[in-house]
Every structure is written in structure tokens, then in C-alpha cells.
């Protein structure tokens, strides 16, 4: 399975605004897998992430991604974006 192969790599997860505040870091490195498993791993390490996670959107290698089953390969980048509040 692709999941097994990908799991050998590491994924950079960049956290912004309220998500960064919840996790306490602007970047964490987790094992490759699905987008859902990547987020689950962050939540297991940083329980406060659970509060903001449901309101976030995600970028997978700079492209918007809302499919929690999407594969996140080793070397990929995930961005965690809380609701925007510009202007």
C-alpha cells in the first residue's frame, strides 16, 4: 500500500495564527500518511489543537485540500489555516 511506503518519510506541518498558538510551534514534523492521520498525530501530541482543528482549512503542497483521505507523501508540506480575518 502507498500508505506504508509514504509512512517512511516525514511531513512538515506549518501552523498559523490560532493553530500555531494551540500547538505552541509554527512547524512540527510528523510521519507521512493521510491528511487525517497527520492531523491526528498533531492532536495526540498537542491536545489543544482539537479546539481549533474543526475550523481550519488545509493546504497540501500549496494546494487547498479538504479530503482527509488524501495521501501526504514524505517530503510534502501541509499548511493549517484557521478561519481568515483580514480587512
Amino acid at each position, binding site marked *: 500500500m502507498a500508505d506504508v511506503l509514504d509512512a517512511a518519510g516525514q511531513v512538515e506541518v506549518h501552523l498559523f*495564527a490560532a493553530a500555531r498558538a494551540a500547538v505552541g510551534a509554527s512547524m512540527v514534523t510528523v510521519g507521512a500518511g493521510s491528511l487525517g492521520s497527520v492531523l491526528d498525530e498533531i492532536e495526540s501530541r498537542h491536545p489543544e489543537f482539537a479546539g481549533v482543528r474543526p475550523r481550519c482549512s488545509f*493546504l497540501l503542497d500549496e494546494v487547498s485540500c479538504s479530503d482527509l483521505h488524501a495521501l501526504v507523501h514524505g517530503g510534502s508540506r501541509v499548511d493549517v*489555516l484557521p478561519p*481568515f*480575518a483580514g*480587512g
Partner: protein
Amino acid sequence: MKHFSHGGLLVYRADPGFTVNNGPMGEIRQVEVTDRVLDVRGLEALVDDPRAGAVVSFSGTVRDHDHGRSVATLTYEGHPSAESVLAEVAKEIDARFDIIALAVAHRVGPIPIGESALVAAVATAHRGEAFAACQALVDLVKERLPVWKHQVFLDGTDEWVNCA
């Protein structure tokens, strides 16, 4: 006359190729995400054009109150893609309305109370289109721009707006 700057540490230009917009569309004369003071008057001068019959401008300023609480300090954080998203927003507005020229800028970093966070100016031939396009531009920036607002209140508490 295209003008772009690289503002705060959080900002880079992901898509440098968007700037020229000729043919039947209007000119996008400035798109900027910056940590410097914004100047709506400078934007009005930028969109000035001998073909224009109307210029509408917007300045959104940060206030010292939010939902009845006193704000002490206020900081905007931008995603690295913010300036390229702003450029896409400008292009979409330019395509939707009959625009002669437009300019838009968003500030990031700490913003003193009373200073502008978002400024925009639109020049058109007729006034109705200028109001409609400027308002749509501001609305779309608010919807799409990956920017976040952090408020610290006088009572010492803080919040990320829209995440409370």
C-alpha cells in the same frame, strides 16, 4: 508604474507573473501585503486616469473596541501566499467589473489603533461601477485573503478573531 514591495517577514510574492493585465481589462496598479503604514491617498493617486469619471476608495481602520471590549494591541499575521491571493482577487474583480484602474493593499504585523489595515481604490468611467467594484473588492479580500487578526484586550486576555 507597477509597484510591488516585500513587506513583513511573513510575506513573499509566490506568483510574480500576474502583474500585467492589458487588453480589455483595467490596469491593476498596485497589489501589496506589507508591514508598513498604508496610504489610501497614494492609492487614489495611483488609479488616477484621464479616462476615469469616478474614483471610489476604501480605508478599513483598526478600532479600539471590539464587541464592547477595549483593544490594547492588534496584530495581523499573513500566510506566505497572501500577496499572490490578493493578486488573484484583484484579477477576479477586474474581470467582473468595467474597471479602468485599481489598487489594493493589506497591512500585516502590529497596527496601531486608528491606522488602516486594508485600503483599496477603483477608477471607472461611471460612478455606479466604481462603488460596486470597490465594495466587491473589499468583500472578496475579506473572504479570501489568508490573513489573521490577533487582539490583546486591556484586561490582558487575547483572541484570534473568528477562532474564539
